[in-house]
C-alpha cells in the first residue's frame, strides 16, 4: 500500500540452481514477472557470451515465423508437405496453361485451315466459330497443287510484330502467316493473364520449317503439333478439353488442401511465436548469469522487491520440481552499496499516470513518487485549461467507449490508437474534471446556463432607482451596469460558477481575464507549495529538514503566499472602484520598497507588514545558500575519526560473513575508502551545488508563478475558439429565415461538428495536455523530485508478449 507513494524496497539476491533445472526455473520466474536479472558479465560483447548460438537459433526461428510460411525445427514434415503442395501446384498450373493454349490454338486455327483448304480441296467442315470469318482474306497467290507444311504455335502478343518482320526478311514473303489474339474465357482466372497470339505459318519445304522452329525458339514461342485434317483436329480438341477438366479438378482440390493446411497452421502460429519468444528471453537471461562448470551450477544475481521474496522462492521450487531434480535452488540475500532499481507497483488504472511521470525521469530509489498526486492534479490542471462542459462531456464519452472496447482497439495494432487506449483512464479523468470546470466557468459550447438566476439586474438601472431613461437607451449602442447603483448588483454572487450575465456582456473579457489571471496565480502558488511540502517526505528519509526545507517554505510563503493573500483580500473587501489599487503594482512596489506613489493601500498596516515580509524573504536567501555547506564543513573535522571506526567495522565483517567468492568483499572495502575520500575533496562542489540550487529556487519561484498564467491563456483561447465556432458557423445558419434554412442548418451543423472535434477537442486537448504535463514536470517537480534513477525492468513474459 505504501509502495505507490514511494518506490519499493529492493534487495539483491543471489540464486544458485542446477543447470538442468535452469530453463524451467527461469521460465517460472518469467511468468512471475518480479525479478530483474543483473548482468554478471558487463564487459563482454554479445557474441562472446555462452549461449549465443541458442539465442541466434531462436532469432532465426522468430524471423521465419514472421513470414508465416515455413516452420523449421518443430514442423519439418509440415514444411515438406507445403513445399510439395506448392511445387505440384506450379506444375499443374503450367500444364493447365499449356492445355488452354492448345485449346485456343485448335479453336482458332480451324478457320485458317479451312480457308487454305478451300483453295485446295473441298472443305469438309465449316469453321465452328465464325467469329473470325472476317479474317478470311482472299489470298490468291497460293500454289494450289503444292502441299503446304505449317508450324503452329503461341507467341506473346507484343513480340508478334517483330516475329512477322523477321519472317519476311528470312523468307521474302514465301509464306502465309495467320494470327489471332487469344481472348480469355470467363472461367479461366489466371492470376496474371499475359496477352498471347495464336499463329500459323504455312511454308514450303522441311528445311524452312526447321528454320522457323529455331526462330520460334528464339522468340520463346511455344509450338504445338497440330494435325492437318479437321477430324483429327476435332478429336484432339475433345482430348484436350477432357484433360483440361481433369486438371481443373485437381487444381481445385490442391488449392483447398493448401488452404486447410495453412489455416490449421495459422491457428497455432501465435502459440509458436510466443514459445519462441520465451525461449529467446530465457537464453538471453542465461547469458547474463555465471556458470560454475565444475559444479554444474548456475549463479544469477537478481533485483527483487523485498515483499515478493517468498513468491520468488516458491516459483524457483516449482521450476526445479518440474525437472525432477531433488536439489532446490538456493536464494541468498546480499547487502550492497549499489543503487537498486526503482519499482512502483501499478495496476491498470495507475500505470498510465506512472508512465507520464517516468517519461520525464524515473525516480531515485525510494524517493517520493509524484504519481499518486498527479492522478488528480494533472487532469484538474488540464480541465482548468480546457474548461467547457460540452467538450468535457464528449471527452468523457470517448473515454468510456475506449474503456469498454479496449480489447477491440488493441487488436487494431495502430500506434496512435494504442496510445489513446493506454491513456484511456487519463482521458476519463480529464473529461470528468472538464465537465466540472466547465460548469464553473459556465461555458457549454460557448453558451451559459442560468440555473439560479443572475445577480445582475437591468431594471434597477432605470428610473427611479438608477440614472437611465429610455432616451439614454436610444442614444447609445451599449450601456454599462454600475454596481454602485443600489439593486443593480443583488449583493449575492451567483452561487455556482460565473454569472451567466457575463456571457452576453460586451466587456466579458475584461472581467474574465482579471478573474482567470488571479485564479492561475492562486492555483500555481498552491500547487508549488504542495510540491515543497512533498519534499519534506524526501528529507525525513534523509534527515535534512532545517537546512533546506524551512528557508524554501518561508521564502515562498512570504512573497507569493502574501500575493495570494492580497488577491483574496481585495476580492473580499468592498472598495470604491476608482480608488482600488492594482495588485500587480502593489507587489512590484513592495519589492522595490517604493511607498511614495499615490499611496493607495488595501489595508491600514500594509506598509510595515510588507517591509517585514520582504526582509524575511531576503534573510532566507543566505540561509539557503550557506547553512548546509557550513555545517558539512564542520562535520569534516570529525571525518577521520569516522574513517577509523569504519575500518574497524569492515574488519569484523570479513570474519563473520561467508561469501561465495571473495570478489564482493573486496568491492565493498574499496567503496568505503572511496566514499571517505570523496567527502574530503568535494567541499567546493557542495558550495557550487548549493549556490545553483538557491538561485534556481528563488528565481524559479517568480518565473514558475508567472508560468502558471498559461492556465489563463489556454482557457481564454479555448473559450474564444468555442465562441467563434458558435458565432460564425452555427449561428449564421440558425438566423436564416427562409425555408432552405433547414438544409443549410444540416450542412452547417456538420461543419460545426467536424470543426469542434478537430480544433477544439483534438488540437486544444493535445495542447492543454501538453501544458498541464509541462506544469507538472517543471514547475511542480523541481520543488522535490530528482528523477535520476533507473527503472526496474523484470523478466516478464506477459509484458514481452503484450508488446508485440
Amino acid at each position, binding site marked *: 500500500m505504501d509502495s505507490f507513494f514511494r518506490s519499493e524496497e529492493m534487495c539483491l539476491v543471489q540464486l544458485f540452481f542446477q543447470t538442468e533445472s535452469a530453463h524451467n526455473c527461469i521460465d517460472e520466474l518469467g511468468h512471475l514477472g518480479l525479478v530483474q536479472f543483473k548482468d554478471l558479465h558487463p564487459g563482454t560483447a554479445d557474441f562472446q557470451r555462452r549461449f549465443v548460438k541458442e539465442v541466434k537459433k531462436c532469432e532465426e526461428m522468430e524471423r521465419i515465423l514472421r513470414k508465416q510460411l515455413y516452420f523449421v525445427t518443430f514442423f519439418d514434415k509440415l514444411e515438406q508437405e507445403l513445399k510439395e503442395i506448392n511445387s505440384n501446384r506450379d506444375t499443374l498450373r503450367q500444364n493447365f496453361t499449356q492445355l488452354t493454349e492448345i485449346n485456343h490454338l485448335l479453336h482458332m486455327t480451324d478457320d485458317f485451315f479451312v480457308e487454305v483448304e478451300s483453295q485446295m480441296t473441298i472443305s469438309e467442315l465449316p469453321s465452328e466459330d465464325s467469329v473470325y470469318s472476317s479474317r478470311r482474306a482472299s489470298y490468291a497467290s497460293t500454289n494450289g497443287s503444292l502441299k503446304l507444311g505449317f508450324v503452329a504455335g503461341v507467341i506473346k502478343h507484343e513480340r508478334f510484330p517483330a516475329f512477322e518482320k523477321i519472317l519476311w526478311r528470312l523468307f521474302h514473303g514465301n509464306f502465309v502467316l495467320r494470327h489471332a489474339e487469344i481472348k480469355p474465357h470467363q472461367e479461366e482466372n489466371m492470376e496474371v493473364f499475359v496477352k498471347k497470339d495464336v499463329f500459323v505459318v504455312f511454308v514450303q519445304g522441311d528445311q524452312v520449317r526447321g528454320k522457323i522452329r529455331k526462330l520460334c525458339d528464339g522468340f520463346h514461342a511455344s509450338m504445338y503439333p497440330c494435325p492437318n485434317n479437321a477430324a483429327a483436329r476435332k478429336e484432339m480438341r475433345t482430348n484436350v478439353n477432357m484433360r483440361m477438366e481433369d486438371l481443373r479438378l485437381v487444381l481445385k482440390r490442391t488449392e483447398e488442401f493448401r488452404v486447410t493446411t495453412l489455416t490449421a497452421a495459422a491457428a497455432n502460429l501465435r502459440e509458436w511465436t510466443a514459445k519462441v519468444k520465451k525461449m529467446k528471453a530465457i537464453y538471453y537471461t542465461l547469458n547474463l548469469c555465471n556458470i560454475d562448470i565444475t559444479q554444474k551450477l548456475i549463479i544469477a544475481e537478481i533485483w527483487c522487491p523485498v515483499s515478493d521474496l517468498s513468491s520468488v522462492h516458491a516459483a524457483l521450487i516449482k521450476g526445479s520440481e518440474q525437472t525432477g531434480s531433488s536439489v532446490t535452488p538456493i536464494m541468498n540475500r546480499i547487502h550492497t552499496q549499489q543503487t537498486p532499481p526503482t519499482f512502483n507497483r501499478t495496476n491498470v488504472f495507475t500505470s498510465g499516470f506512472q508512465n507520464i511521470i517516468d517519461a520525464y525521469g524515473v525516480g531515485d530509489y525510494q524517493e517520493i513518487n509524484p504519481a499518486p498526486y498527479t492522478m488528480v492534479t494533472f487532469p484538474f490542471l488540464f480541465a482548468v485549461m480546457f474548461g467547457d462542459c460540452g467538450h468535457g462531456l464528449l471527452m468523457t464519452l470517448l473515454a468510456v467507449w475506449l474503456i469498454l472496447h479496449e480489447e477491440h482497439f488493441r487488436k487494431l495494432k495502430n500506434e496512435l490508437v494504442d496510445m489513446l487506449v493506454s491513456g484511456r483512464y487519463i482521458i476519463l479523468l480529464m473529461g470528468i474534471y472538464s465537465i466540472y470546470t466547465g460548469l464553473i466557468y459556465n461555458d457549454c459550447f460557448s453558451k451559459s446556463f442560468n440555473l439560479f438566476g443572475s445577480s445582475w439586474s437591468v431594471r434597477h438601472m432605470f428610473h427611479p432607482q438608477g440614472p437611465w431613461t429610455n432616451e439614454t437607451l436610444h442614444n447609445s449602442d451599449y450601456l454599462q451596469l454600475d454596481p454602485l447603483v443600489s439593486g443593480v448588483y443583488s449583493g449575492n454572487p451567483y452561487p455556482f460558477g460565473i454569472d451567466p450575465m457575463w456571457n452576453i456582456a460586451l466587456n466579458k473579457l475584461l472581467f474574465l481575464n482579471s478573474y482567470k489571471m488571479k485564479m492561475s496565480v492562486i492555483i500555481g502558488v498552491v500547487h508549488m507549495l504542495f510540491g515543497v511540502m512533498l519534499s519534506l517526505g524526501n528529507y525525513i528519509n534523509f534527515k535534512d529538514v532545517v537546512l533546506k526545507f524551512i528557508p524554501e517554505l518561508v521564502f515562498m510563503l512570504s512573497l507569493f503566499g502574501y500575493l495570494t493573500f492580497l488577491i483574496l483580500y481585495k476580492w*473580499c473587501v468592498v472598495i470604491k472602484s476608482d480608488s482600488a489599487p492594482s495588485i500587480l503594482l502593489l507587489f512590484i512596489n513592495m519589492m522595490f520598497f517604493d511607498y511614495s506613489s499615490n499611496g493607495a493601500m488595501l489595508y491600514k498596516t500594509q506598509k510595515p507588514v510588507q517591509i517585514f515580509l520582504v526582509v524575511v524573504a531576503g534573510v532566507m536567501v543566505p540561509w539557503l545558500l550557506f547553512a548546509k555547506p557550513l555545517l558539512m564543513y564542520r562535520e569534516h573535522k570529525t571525518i577521520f575519526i569516522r574513517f577509523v571506526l569504519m575500518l574497524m567495522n569492515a574488519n569484523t565483517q570479513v570474519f563473520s560473513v561467508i561469501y561465495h567468492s571473495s570478489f564482493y568483499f573486496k568491492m565493498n572495502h574499496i567503496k568505503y575508502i572511496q566514499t571517505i575520500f570523496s567527502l574530503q575533496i568535494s567541499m567546493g562542489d557542495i558550495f557550487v551545488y548549493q549556490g545553483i540550487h538557491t538561485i534556481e529556487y528563488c528565481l524559479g519561484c517568480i518565473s514558475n508563478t508567472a508560468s502558471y498564467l498559461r492556465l489563463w491563456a489556454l482557457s481564454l483561447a479555448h473559450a474564444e475558439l468555442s465562441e467563434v465556432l458558435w458565432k460564425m458557423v452555427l449561428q449564421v445558419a440558425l438566423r436564416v429565415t427562409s425555408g432552405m434554412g433547414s438544409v443549410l442548418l444540416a450542412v452547417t451543423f456538420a461543419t460545426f461538428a467536424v470543426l469542434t472535434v478537430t480544433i477544439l477537442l483534438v488540437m486544444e486537448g493535445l495542447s492543454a495536455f501538453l501544458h498541464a504535463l509541462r506544469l507538472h514536470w517543471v514547475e511542480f517537480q523541481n520543488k522535490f523530485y530528482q528523477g535520476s534513477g533507473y527503472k526496474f525492468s523484470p523478466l516478464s513474459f506477459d509484458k514481452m508478449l503484450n508488446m508485440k
Partner: protein
Amino acid sequence: MANLSFVIPMSVMTLFWGIIGGVVPWFIPKGPNRGVIVTMLVLTAVCCYLFWLIAILAQLNPLFGPALKNDTIWYMYYHSS
C-alpha cells in the same frame, strides 16, 4: 456577508466537499488501493472546492458591471423581473 443567499451556497459547498475529502476516506475498505483512493478523494475535494471558492469570491464585490447592448437591455427590462 451575513446575507442568507450567500451563506447557503457557501455552507452547502463547504459541507459537500468537506464530506468527500474528510469523511468518506474513513469508509474506504482496507486493501492495496486504499492509500491511492484516499489521496485521490482528498486532492479532488481540495482542488474542486478551491476552484469553486475562487469563482464565487471573485464575484463577491464587483468593481464594475457588465456592458450590454441596448437591444439586450430593452429585452431584459421588459421581459424579466
